[in-house]
């Protein structure tokens, strides 16, 4: 009983500590209003027993969202904002989750947006959070909602000065790794980027 009590105290202390660490991590991420660079996505598909790799550029605006420009193997783009996820192919929208049309889409967009922005409260509301320090801070996000768990089981971020990598473990044994390289930190977005994130 005593051991359980002590374990609970430790657990509580760690959860408080993780909470503080999470804020520290996201303060560091949002210290750069804009982060740009290249990304590589490696998507493992269990049924094919192989990984699909795509590459491109990204623009991360801490308070506005993220733009992924996929250059190869099939050019397309994905814009994640607080209320929608829009995928375009040759300028045409091919898939959209618009929060204006549906509260469920709005919630999903808000949650994904929060992973890249300084919206710690949304993360705490939707995930069991743990943070491990080291050369890079590792943030593990496990969804509380069973519906979100149908989409992914865990999101892990490795954060130095900014987000270095994101790993998403999906159901059915699939996983996706995103690596963010050659990063630079401009002061502000271009007007085109502003427009794309505002739409």
């Amino acid at each position: 009983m005593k051991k359980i009590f002590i374990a609970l105290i430790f657990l509580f202390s760690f959860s408080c500590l993780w909470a503080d660490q999470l804020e520290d991590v996201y303060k560091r991420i949002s210290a750069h209003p804009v982060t740009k660079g290249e990304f590589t996505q490696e998507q493992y598909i269990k049924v094919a027993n192989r990984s699909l790799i795509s590459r491109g550029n990204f623009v991360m605006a801490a308070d506005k969202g993220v733009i992924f420009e996929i250059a190869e193997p099939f050019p397309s783009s994905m814009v994640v904002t607080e209320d929608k996820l829009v995928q375009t192919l040759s300028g045409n929208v091919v898939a959209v989750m618009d929060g204006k049309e549906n509260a469920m889409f709005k919630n999903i967009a808000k949650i994904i947006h929060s992973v890249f922005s300084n919206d710690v409260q949304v993360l705490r509301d939707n995930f069991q959070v743990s943070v491990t320090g080291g050369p890079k801070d590792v943030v593990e996000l496990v969804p509380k909602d069973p519906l979100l768990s149908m989409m992914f089981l865990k999101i892990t971020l490795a954060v130095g000065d900014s987000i270095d990598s994101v790993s998403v473990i999906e159901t059915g044994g699939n996983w996706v790794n995103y690596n963010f390289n050659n990063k630079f930190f401009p002061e502000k977005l271009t007007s085109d980027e502003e427009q794309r994130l505002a739409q």
Partner: protein
Amino acid sequence: MKNRGWPNNRTFFLLLLVAVFAAALCRGVQIDTSFFSLFPEYSDLSDVEKKISHNTSSSVYIFAESSDFESAEKGAEAFYDAFKDSDVFRSLTLYQDSASFEELKNFLFEHRYQLIDEETLSLLESGKADSVAKSALAQVYSPFSFADLSRLDKDPFILTEKNIKKYASRNTGNMFMKEGCLAAESDGKWYVMIRGAVTEKALSFSKKNGIGNVYDRIKVLEQEWPGVSYICSGVPFHSYESSSKAMKEISWITGISLALVAAILLFAFRSLFPMFISLANIAVSLLFGLSVVMIFYGQINALALVFGTTLIGVSIDYSIHYFVNREHIFRSLTVNCISTEVSWSLLMLAPFPLLRQIALFSAAGLLCSYLIVRLLYPALSLPRRFDLHQNDRRLPVPGGHLVRTAGILILAICFVAPAVSGIRIKNNIRGMYTMSGQLLEWEKKASAVLSLGSSGEYFIVSGRGPQELLAREEQLTAALEEEKKDGALGGYAAITSYIPSMARQARSYKAAELLLQRSQAQLKALGFGSAAAGQFEQDYRNNAGRIVTLKDVPSFMKENIDTLYLGKIGDAYYSVVFPLLVKDSGALKNLADGEHVFFMSKIKDIEKELDHLTKIALCFILASYLLVFSILFAVYRKKALKTALVPVAVILGSLAFVSAAGGGVDLFACSGIVLIFGLGLDYLVYGLEKKTGKATLLSFITTEISFGALALSSFVPAHVFGLTVCVGLALAYILSCLINRS
């Protein structure tokens, strides 16, 4: 004495009473609390309408509200735990099982070739299979697309994924899944929704009414969970509120009417005997009216009972006149009973269940009261004749010239008044039922939280068979899509959004054949070997001839589907399509052909139908005027002609009053006028029989008490009806007195 020589009739009447009471007891006394009984049957599709009403009349939404999600969820959980095993709800859902999502995915995967979404189908049919393939590859290689890739070898064009988003997000409004519950955030508050359907038993009127239990439990839960409050929405709550209010009103209207009538009888006759006999007559007549309604309808609406309380004031008249005039009054009583029965019978013809019940209740009760007076009273050993003229001092009456002048003046005013006030026929369905403050507040909040945008307008689609029905519905939804682009509406709920017609499914399967040519390249781009393409083609061929039916639909969608698909009613099959977030209902109305697709704007249609009924009722009044005066002329000859103008003046005066007071003559005011005509004639008949005076005054007062009490009802139709009869009868009485005295 003639009447004492009617033992056979008396015995027959007593046997009839016993038989009617026994038959009613066998059927059981059931009070209908349905909110929809308020509305008339207003279209040729009344059976279809009834089914739609039945589907929606048991559904409820209960929201637990709190400033944070956790508290709202706990509040919802507490409510769910309290009622999940009770007999109040036949279904109650708080948690959306994650298995449901898996079930949906499997369903859409199994039928991916039959259920291709409209956009992809359009691309395929225009030969753009390449665009479909590229779009799928873009989604697979895109970050955070959340496409389910676990069956990529069998579904390389991710046909399933496109449908998942469409099906999962359908008609959810502001609600979204959060921690297994449907939740919404609005104005800084969290709402967790519980959906349910109440049982028939829960809606029945009794001390243990299910909705009453819900209210009681909510009070307890709000104390146990500080910061959590509950919002209740749905027809059963309105049915409960209107029926509870009706039952309370029956109690006090009956109480007031009976107490005042008893006091007046006691005061007038200075004896307990007439009072007790009269009250016994009223009691038996009320029971008889109730029994007859039970036998014919199997149940009585609570609101019909509110109206039925007026029987007290009407049926007492026969007793009063008998006690004063004994057998000498029988001819007048018979004529009066016929004229009033004619009035009620006319109302029985109205295609309005509530009005028909009121009319049958009152007509049967009145007939019973008349028969008691006619057949049973003469058999009683009455102690003495109650002469009101001897018991009371006569009131000073003005001279003949003055009376004639006053009579002509009032007649003139009655004839001129409608021209001044203007008679407008106007029924206001929204005004028929006023929600209590709390229920109104709840409905406003629920509507804001749900934000489904349902407008009360909908389409009914028919077909000779299910496939013809679905095909017609698809034509309608295609037109609705066009209107959606033009901004006339925001969306719609239709059965074909879940299950397309066989023709549409066959079209979908055929179009998917184009993907076979692309499958090898597609699968290669996704990292699969050449064998996968062969397997893909085999899968496609194996799906040939498969058809998705209602039975295949995932169980959690069945509730929605049951609301939309009405099935076979009569000789045809029907479905209902609900347009959502309607901005231009005129544009939608044009989509109905009136033959197979009907646009139902319930409130407007009912109001239009009620206006039509009101006009018919006015024609009925004219017809009954001619009929009753033919009877009066046959009985009283020239004397009847003298009074011919009085009912016309009373009707015109009453119509003018209703128009001036309420802004328009509605069906209930008109029904009141029908009754004024029937009851008002009584005063004229008593005058023709030279039986005016205190007995008529007394019967007038008791009738006014009954309808006056009804005018105090909070139920608008009862108030309008009571007030109209009150004013009309006063006019009829005054004019009858003036005409007879002059």
